């Protein structure tokens, strides 16, 4: 039996406590000679011999309870087969979709099988399979036939090659042991990312069994819809050849075309009237290459509008948000917004996570819980826009974002006619204005709040007196923008200026950028709950339709040299080794979870102790 945390055995010294108590307590009661203790017989007394035996039993039970507790903390586990102590050979098999070419995976499986069978006789053998994720398909075992049988079940998937995860997973199987890692792969060049070097324990040798990729592979690497139909890019890693391209809409064939695919990338345009909704599938006929990248999907559904929550007094748009609502509702396409008015007093109970941006215009009735809710929304990556105006209570705004947004809004000393000018025209809000950014200066401002600049503020526009007109603040993962005057034609004439609409759009889009809803995902980044398979899919939770495509980088057949591969692998420091060994043992221990039995035994012992203790009172 081994122990994950043997240091906890020091805790066994605690048994000295009940032992000392036992010895100390023994002489607690004075001894009194008496003529005949039979006369005390039916009284609530305890025969000394029985009492001593009972106390000894209680002591034993208490010590046992402590030892079981210590045992539970040491987290015992069994290594019956010696799989944790013998040297190890881990075969790491690449099952990314680039391995899916004709016979390529059979060759890879054969190479992996050979690595298993030919592993040194005294080694235990394990199996790791990987694409962009790695998992232990077979834990370290002496039963090589079981590993070979497991290899027979492995098939190429749709994922992309990521060597780091694979070598890391294999390295963690070693713990403090020595051995070999045999990586069976097509050495996809994109398998190593720039910062993805890994380390293996000392005494572990990494070997690479290279499997030649398919030489001539056609892949659809991109696809987009345009007014004429569909344009796509086909990548040919082989020699120039003709191929058939097919376009399907929700399983129905729309059109086919013969295309001459030159070596490298070829743009294909298919002129076809596209429906406004549904999913497109573009397929290229490729019998020689890997099948997973022969098709690509595109969603035609119009993007769902970004939902903008506007906090106004009483939840009425007319209370300071009329022009803003009109401007946002007029947008189309990427500027399609849905405005939801929210009363300040219901913010606390409303779900805010579905909002792309929260615009705070009115604060009457905004309680502490509501302010905390908005602060949490911003901290979680949400965009918050604070618009000064007659209905905004500056001290509440400060309270909303607290230390994360050390913003101080103060009333200006007097009403003065002024204008603002952009400080940084390259900022995403003002960049689309291009040379017209100066027209924002035509806005006449009669009244504004004084935004006190704090070290965390980034001023984007200033009034003529130099005070901040538009300032941006980072709030954890989110951001907030404060506009020092209003957007409702009360304190300025901005809503009547032609620049109002693009300013509002760009401002809102900028704030919503972190919460964009992607319509296309790759297999490598599907969210939890969604099957990582190419094709149309519905996102769990939101019910939004998306398409999942393979990672186009995986279609690159450029291979690494073995030396280049190995240059990404380093030997781990001994301290790291302990950590890895510990993780491996922790895995084994968590599989066995014997500590529960120790806890259970301790509880039983404590119950017995309580019963025994109570029965003699």
């Amino acid at each position, binding site marked *: 039996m081994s122990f994950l945390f043997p240091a906890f055995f020091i805790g066994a010294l605690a048994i000295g406590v009940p032992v000392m108590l036992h010895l100390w307590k023994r002489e607690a009661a004075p001894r*009194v000679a008496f003529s005949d*203790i039979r006369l005390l017989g039916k009284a609530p007394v305890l025969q000394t011999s029985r009492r001593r035996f009972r106390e000894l039993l209680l002591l034993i039970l208490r010590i046992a309870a402590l030892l079981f507790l210590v045992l539970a903390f040491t987290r015992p586990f069994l290594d019956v087969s010696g799989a944790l102590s013998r040297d190890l050979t881990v075969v790491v098999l690449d099952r990314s979709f680039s391995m899916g070419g004709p016979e390529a995976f059979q060759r890879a499986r054969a190479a992996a099988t050979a690595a298993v069978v030919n592993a040194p006789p005294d080694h235990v053998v394990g199996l790791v399979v990987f694409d962009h994720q790695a998992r232990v398909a077979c834990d370290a075992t002496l039963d090589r036939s079981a590993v070979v049988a497991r290899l027979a079940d492995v098939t190429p998937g749709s994922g992309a090659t990521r060597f780091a995860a694979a070598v890391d997973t294999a390295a963690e199987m070693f713990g403090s042991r020595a051995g070999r890692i045999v990586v069976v792969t097509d050495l996809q060049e994109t398998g190593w990312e720039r910062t993805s070097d890994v380390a293996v324990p000392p005494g572990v040798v990494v070997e690479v069994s290279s499997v030649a990729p398919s030489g001539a592979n056609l892949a659809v690497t991109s696809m987009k819809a345009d007014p004429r139909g569909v344009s796509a890019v086909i990548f040919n890693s082989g020699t120039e050849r003709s191929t058939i391209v097919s376009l399907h809409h929700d399983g129905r064939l729309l059109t086919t075309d013969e295309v001459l695919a030159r070596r490298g990338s070829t743009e294909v345009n298919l002129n076809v009237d596209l429906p406004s909704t549904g999913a497109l599938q573009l397929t290229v006929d490729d019998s020689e290459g890997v099948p997973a990248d022969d098709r690509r999907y595109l969603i035609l559904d119009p993007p769902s509008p970004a939902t903008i929550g506007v906090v106004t007094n009483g939840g009425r748009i007319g209370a300071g948000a009329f022009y803003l609502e009109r401007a946002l509702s007029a947008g189309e396409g990427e500027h399609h917004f849905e405005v939801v008015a929210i009363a300040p007093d219901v913010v606390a109970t409303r779900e805010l996570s579905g909002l792309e941006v929260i615009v705070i215009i009115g604060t009457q009735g905004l309680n502490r819980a509501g302010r905390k809710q908005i602060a949490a929304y911003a901290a979680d990556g949400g965009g918050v826009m604070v618009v000064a105006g007659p209905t905004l209570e500056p001290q509440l705004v400060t309270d909303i974002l607290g230390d994360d947004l050390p913003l101080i809004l103060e009333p200006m000393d007097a009403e003065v006619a002024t204008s603002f000018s952009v400080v940084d025209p390259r900022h995403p809000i003002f960049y689309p204005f291009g040379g017209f950014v100066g027209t924002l200066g035509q806005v006449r401002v009669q009244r504004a709040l004084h935004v006190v600049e704090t070290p965390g503020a980034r001023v984007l526009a200033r009034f003529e007196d130099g005070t901040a007109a538009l300032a941006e603040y980072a709030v954890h993962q989110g951001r907030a923008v404060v506009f020092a005057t209003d957007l409702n034609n009360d304190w300025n004439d901005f809503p009547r200026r032609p620049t109002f609409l693009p300013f509002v759009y760009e401002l809102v889009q900028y704030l919503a950028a972190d919460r964009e809803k992607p319509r296309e995902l790759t297999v490598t980044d599907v969210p939890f709950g969604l099957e990582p398979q190419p094709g149309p899919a519905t996102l769990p939770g939101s019910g939004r339709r998306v398409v999942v495509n393979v990672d186009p980088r995986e279609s690159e057949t450029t291979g690494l040299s073995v030396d280049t591969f190995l240059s990404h692998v380093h030997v781990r420091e001994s301290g790291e080794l302990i950590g890895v060994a510990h993780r491996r043992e922790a895995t084994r221990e968590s599989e066995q979870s014997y500590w529960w039995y120790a806890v259970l035994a301790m509880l039983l012992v404590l119950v017995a102790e309580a019963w025994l203790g109570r029965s003699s009172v």
Partner: protein
Amino acid sequence: MTTAPRANELRYLDPQVVARIGSMELRARTVVEGFLIGLHRSPHTGCSVEFSEYRQYMPGDDVSLIDWKVYARSDRYYVKKFKEETNLECHLLLDVSGSMGYSSTAISKQEYASYLAASLAYLMNRQNDAVGLIVFAERVLKQLEASVRPEHLRRVLLELDRVETGRGSNLAKPLIRLADALSRRGMVVLISDLLDEPERVVDGLRRLRFRGTDVVVFHVLDHAELTFPFEGVSRFEDLETGQEVQAVPSAIRGDYLERVEDLIAFYTRELRLNGIDYRLVDTSKPLDLALHAYLSARSQLY
């Protein structure tokens, strides 16, 4: 006729005072003489059937002793004088089991019992009764046959002075042995704490009684045994078995006293039913109470 003893005389009946006297013989004499002074009655008032002489009647003599036949012949009053003798054979059974060693004061139950036995022996000898002694614990430790000779009394007192506390307790055994050995009627005085199986004790005494022996039982108990005055959690160690029990006295006092009362009530009832004189003796009380009990029992014989 008895009168209450004066305080100065009574102090010689206090067991703690007696315990300070040097020898057992002196103790016995002190007790008995003190007792008799208090009693104001001649120790020589013996009874006999053997005629000794006639003596002219003197005022104050018992009128019942006048020999009316002599008066008829001589017209003078003569009273009969009888030679003092006794046919009473008295055996003292002294329990020296471990439990008799218990004492809550300066004097243990065994010491008290020894003084009592010595006093009784002295008193018996003074009244020309034959005195025997059996000292026992779980077995008979010492046995002296009954005799009226003065040197025998000294032997008895010497043995009582030497007696040591035994270990176990078996009351029935000496009773049975004595019942088998007694050849003539007599008196048996059992001095014990009777902390044995009550039924066995009564059976043994009953056997003696069936043989016509008069039995007086002095049930000697320490004052603490009768009141259980202990406080605080204590470990009670049995003086005979060495066993210990831990108890909270306040919690068990009621039960304990009830048991002791039951035990005393049992002995009182069973022994009385069998014609046995039972006396409960508290070792904190003077010895004369026990002597009174003896004389009372003896007077019933004649």
